[in-house]
């Protein structure tokens, strides 16, 4: 096997190619991005350069940091193709035309080193056709790597290898895509649409057909096919608006021309006159004049929906979708709901699940691959076979049979058994030959879900649990709704510390959930406010401070392992850890000011300490204070772990894991690496500017207020924050201890929590999920 991947080339700087290049750069690996020479203008690299410039302005951002963008080298395929010789992997992401791709491969073959992998990001063209005419050596290095859009955020990567693909080359690409780029690799067969798009397109087509046929409104269709089925709330019509309505005929044409004649897709592939007309008139979805939904700017940004019967836009309605169990994930209840909801649900879900089941083994070897593909490629909460388990395989087979529809082989194999089961603490899946195999995690992947199946928690209460994850390491898990933090979490931390200290080596703070924690349980807080339980609130604040400091000064290393959102109190617990092993997608921040409060669980001191220790800061009492004030008063949240590092939420030696599945394993290793000779950090002490500094911060805030960027109440909240950060009545020559700062923090929190305008902010956040700007 040739050298590992140290430089990558992406050819084709369209949305996909550029996005893939950005993700390579996000991994810290240099990438060469090439496109054609434009017909006009003197800059021969304009296409690739333009793509990078555009990405720097795109939201959500393809790049995780500005430093990453600098790793992209741009060029064109006329002048710079020979630079491919420097690269270890070439990803082709040019237009979906066989002749163009084949022509490019012929040129690549002349310049690439042997052993440099070449992969196509094609979504439709079979591998066999792509390598037609190429040498055996080229075929050995060739595979398909099918990314999903946007490449930074979609975790799925379908890999297709051909009969000639060298296993070592494929393994090298797979390893890089997994560890460096953070993708979950699903191996697909060389069949049209691979896995996710084949099933996804079928699902969409069924959804469109059934809505037209059954006379459902767009809103009702999406209210059924969205959340109740575990799909994103955009449902089907909303999704088509998002990806572009004009894409649908292309997908349809591609699949109908390549799928086997007996594939069920042919029977449902229909064009709808309304959709054809919409495309012809430029109503191609969000990128066009509008789609099934639109914002009518002529009518005060009125939300409108198209009427499938008349083709006219009308005001959007809130559809009365499924209710009760059917709304909450009980799929049997959903498809058995009487009337249009149940009929539509069955048409879409029954058809899709049957189709997915029919694709084993032609498109995928096992049910796990199909479930992973749909969960990661279409953001479904559960994969088709997990959904079948909820319906019952036997029930599904029977209903299909009773309607005269074919029953897929794997359903017959399952009989009344589930596709997934747990045997001796190990999760297993049903194979086509009727036996169960263990779900094997790749080396370097540790799942808390697996740990939980295999044993009982060391400690557990209503909001948190402590698990033994092996090798002397424990995992502290939040278990409340949205992983909200409350007194129970603090109680468990206090109980865990002596236990871990006496019987274990280290602790990792981790959760399998999408979001680490959105912070304190505001619902509980508002309840306490409503009954004026001030002393209870103060106890909760003090208890949290004590628990977090307990972790900080515990005689064992504590490693935070966040992914997704880590806000407010969720951010603060991480600030108290000895080290952080973060998932690359980390949205971390102290957002308390947004709800009219200040950080109350030690976040102020931890941030001050980080900035005061930063070598980048000028000397004197103000720079660190001003920086923390700026970050916290504006409730700034990082848009990636790389950015969290720039904001000093993460320390320089904290580490980043690209693949979400590898986070817990990496965090555990990090914790173990800290065990030998472990000493807790020493408590910081602060030299703070006192009232003079508070005056300076007030003047800065006042400027924002006059500019209309800060509200009246922002001024009150930011003054409370400034009081904490400047040390209250401290004088420049005083030393403020950590405990004194905690007291200031508590006092400021307790002052604000009684303020009606803070309470209004909290209530608004709970009701709408958005900050109130009062």
């Amino acid at each position, binding site marked *: 096997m040739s050298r590992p991947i140290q430089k990558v080339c992406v050819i084709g700087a369209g949305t996909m190619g550029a996005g893939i290049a950005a993700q390579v750069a996000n991994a810290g690996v240099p990438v060469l991005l090439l496109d054609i020479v434009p017909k006009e203008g003197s800059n021969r690299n304009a296409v690739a350069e333009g793509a990078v410039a555009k990405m720097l302005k795109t939201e959500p951002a393809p790049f995780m940091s500005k430093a990453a963008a600098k790793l992209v080298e741009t060029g064109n395929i006329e002048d710079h193709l020979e630079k491919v010789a420097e690269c270890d992997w070439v990803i082709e992401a040019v237009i979906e035309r066989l002749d163009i791709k084949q022509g490019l491969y012929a040129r690549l073959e002349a310049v690439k080193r042997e052993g440099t992998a070449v992969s196509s990001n094609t979504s439709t063209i079979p591998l066999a056709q792509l390598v037609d005419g190429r040498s055996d050596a080229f075929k050995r290095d060739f595979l398909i790597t099918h990314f999903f859009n946007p490449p930074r955020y979609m975790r799925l990567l379908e890999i297709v290898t051909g009969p000639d693909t060298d296993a070592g080359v494929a393994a090298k690409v797979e390893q890089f895509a997994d560890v460096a780029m953070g993708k979950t690799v699903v191996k697909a067969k060389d069949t049209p649409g691979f896995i996710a798009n084949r099933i996804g397109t079928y699902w969409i087509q069924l959804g469109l057909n059934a809505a037209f046929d059954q006379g459902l409104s767009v809103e009702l269709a999406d209210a059924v096919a969205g959340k109740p089925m575990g799909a994103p709330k955009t449902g089907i019509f909303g999704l088509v608006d998002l990806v572009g309505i004009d894409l649908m005929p292309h997908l349809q044409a591609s699949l109908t021309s390549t799928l086997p004649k007996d594939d069920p897709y042919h029977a449902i592939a229909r064009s709808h006159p309304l959709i054809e007309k919409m495309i012809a008139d430029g109503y191609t979805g969000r990128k066009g004049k509008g789609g099934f939904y639109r914002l009518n700017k002529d009518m005060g940004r009125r939300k409108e929906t198209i009427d499938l019967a008349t083709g006219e836009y009308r005001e959007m309605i809130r559809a009365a979708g499924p209710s009760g169990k059917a709304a909450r994930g009980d799929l049997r209840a959903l498809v058995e709901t009487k009337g249009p909801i149940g009929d539509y649900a069955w048409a879409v879900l029954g058809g899709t699940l049957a189709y997915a089941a029919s694709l084993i083994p032609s498109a995928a070897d096992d049910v796990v691959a199909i479930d992973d593909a749909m969960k990661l490629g279409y953001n479904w909460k559960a994969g088709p076979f997990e959904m079948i388990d909820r319906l019952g395989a036997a029930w599904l087979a029977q209903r299909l049979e009773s309607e005269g529809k074919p029953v897929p082989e794997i359903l017959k194999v399952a009989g009344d058994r589930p596709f997934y089961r747990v045997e001796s603490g190990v999760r297993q899946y049903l194979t086509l030959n009727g036996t169960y195999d263990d779900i094997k995690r790749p080396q370097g992947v540790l799942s808390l879900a697996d740990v939980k199946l295999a044993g009982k928690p060391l400690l557990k209460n209503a909001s948190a649990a402590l698990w033994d994850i092996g090798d002397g390491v424990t995992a502290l898990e939040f278990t409340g709704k949205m992983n909200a933090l409350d007194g129970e979490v603090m109680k468990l931390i206090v109980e865990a510390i002596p236990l871990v200290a006496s019987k274990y080596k280290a602790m990792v703070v981790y959760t399998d959930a999408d979001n680490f924690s959105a912070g304190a349980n505001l619902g509980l807080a508002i309840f306490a406010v409503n009954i004026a339980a001030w002393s209870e609130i103060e106890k909760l604040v003090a208890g949290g401070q004590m628990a977090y400091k307990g972790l900080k000064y515990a005689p064992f290393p504590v490693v935070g392992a966040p992914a997704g959102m880590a806000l407010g109190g969720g951010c603060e617990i991480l600030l108290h850890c000895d080290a952080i092993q973060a998932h690359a997608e980390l949205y971390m921040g102290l957002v308390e000011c947004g709800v009219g409060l200040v950080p109350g669980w030690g976040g102020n001191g931890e941030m001050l300490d980080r900035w005061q220790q930063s070598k980048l800061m*000028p*000397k*004197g*009492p*103000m*720079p660190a204070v001003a920086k923390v004030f700026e970050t916290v008063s504006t409730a700034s949240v990082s848009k990636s772990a790389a950015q969290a590092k720039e904001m000093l939420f993460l320390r320089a030696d904290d580490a980043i894991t690209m693949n979400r599945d590898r986070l817990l394993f990496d965090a555990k290793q990090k914790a173990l690496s800290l065990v030998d000779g472990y000493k807790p950090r020493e408590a910081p002490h602060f030299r703070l*500017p006192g*009232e*003079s*500094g*508070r*005056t*300076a911060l*007030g*003047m800065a805030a*006042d*400027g924002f207020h*006059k*500019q*209309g960027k800060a509200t009246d109440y922002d001024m009150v909240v930011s003054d409370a924050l400034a009081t904490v950060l400047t040390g209250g009545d401290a004088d*420049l020559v005083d030393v403020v201890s950590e405990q004194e700062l905690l007291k200031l923090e508590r006092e400021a929190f307790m002052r604000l929590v009684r303020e009606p305008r803070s309470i209004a902010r909290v209530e608004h956040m709970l009701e709408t999920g958005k900050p109130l700007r009062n």
Partner: protein
Amino acid sequence: MQSVVIAGYARSPFHLANKGALARVRPDDLAAQVIRGLISKTGVEPSDIEDIIVGCAFPEGEQGLNVARLIGLLADLPISVGGMTVNRFCGSSMSAIHTAMGQIAIGAGEVFVCAGVESMSRVPMMGFNPLPNPALAKKSAAYMGMGETAENVATKYQIARAEQEALAVSSQHKAAAARDAGKLVDEIVPIETKGGTVSEDGTIRGETTAEGLAGLKPAFDANGSVTAGTSSPLTDGASAVLVTTEEYARAHGLPILARIKAVAISGCAPETMGLGPILSSQKALERAGISAGDLDVVELNEAFASQALACIKDLGLDTAKVNIDGGAIAIGHPLGATGARIVGKAASLLKREGGKYALASQCIGGGQGIATVLEAVE
């Protein structure tokens, strides 16, 4: 009293802070290059220089530690030449000139380099550790932001936004025309940077239109009239003039630009600090025994269009004679460097355009004005 003259003027190109071509240049290096340029251009004998007086509004960080002395060493001036940093915010380097004149008057030297420098990229306004006195902050507008004072002046003098924008457009067009006609080349010392030689201003926006400015949002007060387009930009730059006795200049064949006729300082309300030039100019004119009508050249620092317009109105200035090559809205306003620039510029213009008297004046944060009256030398 001895006749004191401006016997040379030079400046660096001015560039926008943070994004401009001088953002990565240390202010001490920048000023040293300008002073070296001034010396070689005038041909003054370095060992005759008594002192380098450098104005700087935020003399800390890279422009701290009595930067004047360090600049002298960086410029390879003889070890015998002194160095003093003075701070009067925006009036710093004009104060440097006034100080030199005073030193000459008491017989404390004949030849002075009066310079100014500010890297607004590398040292923030307010400095790194702003620690205002809380009691003073409560009772006075001493610490008020400059933008807010500009709004106050606009309100007090009822200066409409369009009027401010007309001045800004004119300033930009005059500066661009002067640059395009090569009229700025003589005063600019090309600066060597890591990114190459920088020899032109990076601040001037000759394409500015009234319509374009009308589209900008208020910069300091959501309901106000002052925008980024009608304010001087944050700027990096350095400037220097050679101040000597007329006798010395003549004896050594130095290029005399103008004689300093009178100077003045005045205080005013901090919340309308932009009006500072009114009283200081009136005092200086009176000391010179002339009136505004006698002026042929005026350099009035455009910290903001609103305050410049208010000063023009109250002083009764002829706008055709004010900022002939454009003002700070176009050229930029590196705080400590502006005073020496506008005195040097006024002196040069008096020579270039002909005429008898010139005025250079500027407003100063915290509520002051400073003015210098120059007289042509036959």
